[in-house]
């Protein structure tokens, strides 16, 4: 990923700093090649000035943002990201199951005290860890535990006191997840918050349609308002300090739109529409093709690879689903898969052509 930001003061986030560091590393490699091939001549003073400037920038980025300055540390960072992601999920699961293992032995007062204190202590611990942790990996672990403790706090209160389940509980869950995500710069918590928003908006849409809120999944169209909200959120609220968050919003928005369309293109009985089910499925199949093609076009126009990839993936899924409907029973299996393979090659040619056009 490259960046157009040129001065230190224009770098707001770790991802911007990392992108600039990667540009510097690639620039150094190419400059060495050009000098060796005689395509470029620079004086020693000029080379030293560039080298000194880059060293100074990398040193400041490393101190402020804890970035990877070479390819080996980048590979290690990838390993740390995977480890912290899995560790965060495992710790959250551990807290969840530990609570269930022991909580039945405590009195009600003790249970409530443990729940509330658990939320407060885990949240405070996240703040303290974030202050010391330059890498962000330990902060992710702690933030995930804090989020789990808060969700447990509310859910277990509901079980202890037999409270009627309500979709309104999703509002504080989302608020808490977004707070942790934005302060600690954590995409995992952002995803958790987005999932809560999707559930709440879809449940509300369902209740406005007259159904019980927990049944919102029975009508996949309930997800459409949440999908539009998420997809256009980064356009409406541009956030320079978290450039990595916009793709998360967009991808979740597209998944929330296209997955229900895919479901309805095969299951017309779940629609609010009062037509024959086969007609509904045909309508949604056409919508699926058109929307995923439009998403690819939009992604190409805006230069958003996450949008392009999601659009292409769903276009292919809709296409293959259609092929299955038409030909699975008609063709021998080897021929069916041969046709699928040939279409995949065709799509590759189309995408290569698109890439060449964009490069030009």
């Amino acid at each position, binding site marked *: 990923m490259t960046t157009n930001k040129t001065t230190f003061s224009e770098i707001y986030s770790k991802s911007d700093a990392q992108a600039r560091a990667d540009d510097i590393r690639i620039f150094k490699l190419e400059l060495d090649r050009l000098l060796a091939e005689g395509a470029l001549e620079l004086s020693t003073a000029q080379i030293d000035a560039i080298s000194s400037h880059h060293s100074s920038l990398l040193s400041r980025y490393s101190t402020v943002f804890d970035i990877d300055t070479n390819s080996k540390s980048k590979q290690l960072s990838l390993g740390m990201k995977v480890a912290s992601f899995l560790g965060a999920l495992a710790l959250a699961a551990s807290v969840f*199951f530990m609570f*269930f*293992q*022991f*909580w*039945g*032995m*405590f*009195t*009600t007062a003790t249970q409530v005290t443990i729940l*509330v204190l658990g*939320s*407060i202590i885990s*949240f*405070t611990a996240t*703040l303290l860890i974030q*202050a010391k942790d330059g890498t962000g990996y330990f902060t992710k672990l702690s933030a995930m535990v804090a989020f789990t403790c*808060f969700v447990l*706090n*509310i859910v277990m*209160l*509901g*079980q*202890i*006191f*037999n*409270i*009627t*389940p309500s979709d309104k509980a999703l509002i*504080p869950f989302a*608020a*808490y997840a977004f*707070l*942790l995500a934005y*302060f600690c710069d954590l995409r995992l918590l952002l995803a958790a918050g987005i999932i809560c928003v999707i559930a709440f908006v879809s449940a509300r849409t369902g209740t406005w*349609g*007259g*159904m*019980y809120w*927990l*049944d919102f999944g*029975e*009508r996949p169209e309930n997800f459409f308002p949440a999908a539009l909200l998420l997809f256009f959120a980064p356009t409406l609220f541009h956030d320079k300090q978290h450039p990595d968050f916009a793709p998360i919003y967009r991808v979740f928005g597209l998944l929330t739109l296209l997955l229900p369309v895919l479901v309805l293109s095969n299951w*017309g*009985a*779940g*629609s609010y529409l*009062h037509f*024959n*089910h*086969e007609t509904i499925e045909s309508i949604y199949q056409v919508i699926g093709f058109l929307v995923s093609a439009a998403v690819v076009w939009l992604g190409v126009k805006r230069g958003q690879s996450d949008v392009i990839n999601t659009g292409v993936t769903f276009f292919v899924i809709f296409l293959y689903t259609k092929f299955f409907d038409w030909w699975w029973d008609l063709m021998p299996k080897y021929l069916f898969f041969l046709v699928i393979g040939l279409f995949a090659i065709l799509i590759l040619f189309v995408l290569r052509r698109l890439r060449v056009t964009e490069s030009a």
Partner: protein
Amino acid sequence: MTKSRRTFLLTGLAVIAITNLIAFVGIAYNRIGEPDSTLNLSERELRIPYSWRENNSVSMELKWRVPPNKISTLTDREYAWDFSVPKWLTKQKLMSLGFDEPMLNSMVGELMNGSYGIAQSKQVFIVLELNGPAYREMQEQIFKQGVNQDQAKREEERSRLIAIDAGLDFDALRANYPDRKQYAILRGNVKPTTVYSKQQDVMGMISSIPVSQVNIPVDMRGSYISSESLGDLHKFQASIAFGKRLEPWLLAFTPSNN
């Protein structure tokens, strides 16, 4: 501490505090004053669900039944998720609960042409009657149709809590069923379904009563600590109160192995 950290800390603590406060206010409101109803139930009306090994919390689940449309199903069902269709939840009753008549009519047509879809549920108030006229009528019908000894014994162990009515107006239902020791009114979900009788017809079913589990606090369990040990308990009495928000809590729990 920097300003942003202070803001983060205060905002997070505020979210935790406000959410818990709202929950506690709701709990207090539900339990304040006289309960809306109090039922003295037994192991016939309360089931201790299977609890997985890593969960030592203990709760009971309400077991309720409905007077079914077809008499032959009376001896079949046992658990709270009885999906048989109450004979009083007719198409007219569904319309009084706000279901659309054209939608109900179209359901039969959809069933006939094989394109039956999922009907939408609706939240209403359900009236549960404990050991009242509906239960006695069901008993008469069962024994009138003739049952063997095993079936008779099973029926003696089944729930006396019967769902007898539904409505959208809580106050109107309470006015019709004023005895708060015999009638509990809870929130539940109904949905239309098709039945095969002499002709295809639409009736309703009670798909769920969401708040039907009641936690047993540890100080009420006596020597029974876990759901596994409570599973050995064959007889008990429990007094359950339903508050202003129609949420239940346990007033008394008396085990008995007699």
